[in-house]
């Protein structure tokens, strides 16, 4: 069933679908970044396509090839029971893709994680910030040039006057003062 979906997608968006394959039964279309929103909107609203669920959005860093990254979307239709994978190539240095969170709200958190791990920004996303890592984290760990054993710099406390250990030392000193 998914084969028909892929075929229809390729017919409708001949220019946008750069490449496609059906290896291992996973229908995959490689879509250009500029046309992504248009393609996703059609896949969502068309009756025959009816891709009402975004299963997953993630990215892959291919390291030594241009374009370096690919953002991967897995779509599923609960009514038609077919699946589709969209891959959007992203060049190094232009890590930005239009956000599909307006179409599938699942993308809200999914895209935040892609930004967190890969540094790829999503235009039009209302809440583009890190999700799994803390805000002061330096770098994007799932990039291939991020070493596995890298240390992070130590952070300053956000409110040292309240939280610094020196402040607590005063507290203990007060307690231990003879009456």
């Amino acid at each position: 069933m998914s084969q028909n979906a892929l075929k229809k997608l390729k017919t409708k968006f001949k220019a946008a679908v750069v490449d496609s394959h059906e290896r291992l039964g996973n229908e995959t279309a490689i879509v250009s970044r500029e046309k992504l929103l248009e393609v996703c909107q059609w896949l969502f609203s068309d009756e025959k396509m009816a891709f009402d669920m975004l299963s997953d959005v993630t990215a892959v860093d291919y390291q030594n090839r241009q374009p370096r990254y690919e953002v991967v979307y897995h779509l599923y239709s609960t009514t038609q029971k077919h699946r589709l994978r969209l891959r959007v190539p992203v060049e190094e240095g232009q890590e930005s893709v239009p956000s599909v969170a307006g179409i599938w709200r699942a993308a809200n958190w999914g895209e935040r994680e892609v930004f967190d791990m890969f540094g790829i920004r999503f235009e039009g996303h209302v809440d583009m910030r890190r999700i799994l890592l803390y805000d002061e984290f330096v770098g994007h760990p799932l990039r291939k040039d991020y070493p596995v054993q890298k240390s992070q710099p130590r952070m300053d406390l956000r409110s040292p006057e309240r939280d610094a250990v020196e402040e607590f030392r005063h507290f203990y000193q007060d307690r231990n003062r003879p009456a």
Partner: protein
Amino acid sequence: MNQPRSLAALQPDPDVNAHEDVMVLNMGPSHPAMHGTVRMVLTLDGETIVKCDPEIGYLHRGFEKMCENVTWTQVFPYTDRLNYVSPLLNNFGYALAVEKLLGIEITERARYIRTIMGEMSRICDHLTCVAAGALELGAMSAFLYAIEGRDLIWDIVEEVTGARLTVTYARVGGLKDDLTPDFRERWADVQPRVEKIIAVLDQLATKNRVFMDRMQGTGVISKADAINYGFTGPALRSTGVAYDIRKDHPYFAYDRVDFDVIVGSRGDNYDRYLVRMGEMVQSIRIINHCLRDMPEGPVMVDAPHVVLPAKHDVYNSIEGMINHFKIIFEGIQVPAGEVYSFTEAANGELGFYIVSNGTGRPWRLRVRPPCFYLMGGIDRLVEGAMISDIIPTFDTINMIGGEIDR
């Protein structure tokens, strides 16, 4: 430090109007109800939640990065620690993905065993979820009964796999070991006791006035919203969408066993609870059906470039030695390609998106955690509700820290 010495010495902040302004309350990450460590930043208007902003990542261990640096088989211990209340389901989901990339089919017996052990893990997961939910609503005895049920099953799991939680039972191409010889007797002993415990849970909670008042009508989500937020599993089925991967896209032995898909209608916490209770009964049904039909035979497929040879061959023949050596040190050589393999885990669609570059280590291993997308929609579930409604909602969503943060 300025320690106030008396109530009279406390000065309210003159800029805050306690009756009209919203208050930002921090719930967690160290909180008895925020199990799995998650932090909810609540914007409150009195008791009503105006906005709920969950902050996850407290258990982020870099699973996906680690998996890029180990061989395919070395990933299995990491998958145990994803959804750690149902580790077998994670093991089997990952093994299925790699087997798809390799293009190998596991043996018949392995299919059935994977189904049986997976369903046992599912029962454990649902028992834990229901137990924790009841506990936090005050039904402590329900918690203790459910944990006893879980422990009975864990005894069997320990006999078969060697561990209660960190099982690492699956291998690419099959399983680590066959079932124990007395498995059927043990299950025949445990099954009625587990059924009784489920019945007791039902008696204690389902028609309990307090339980119903807390769970019914809270954490409601509509069908369309649930699908749009990427909900799967019991949370989606509670809204009325009959999407169960075991029925719609069967794998292992699910197409050969009879079971029903439990579907709710209102999409509230009560329906999620009922779906889980119903699924436990169906899991027991599946296990019994599998035990009836399971054939004898090997549990590892006959594929020498994937499966370690028997120890006798390894130590006594150079062929076995070389085979063992290369598989262990270089890893199974998985052909280059990508695959998205999905199974029905306890919380929903557990997906593994694997990209291989033809070597013995994964290039990219993405886990699609079911509760990640469930938590993404939690602000929709508790918007406009009261703080106390967060507790049952958070419980029935069943966020497992290991799975959502990886």
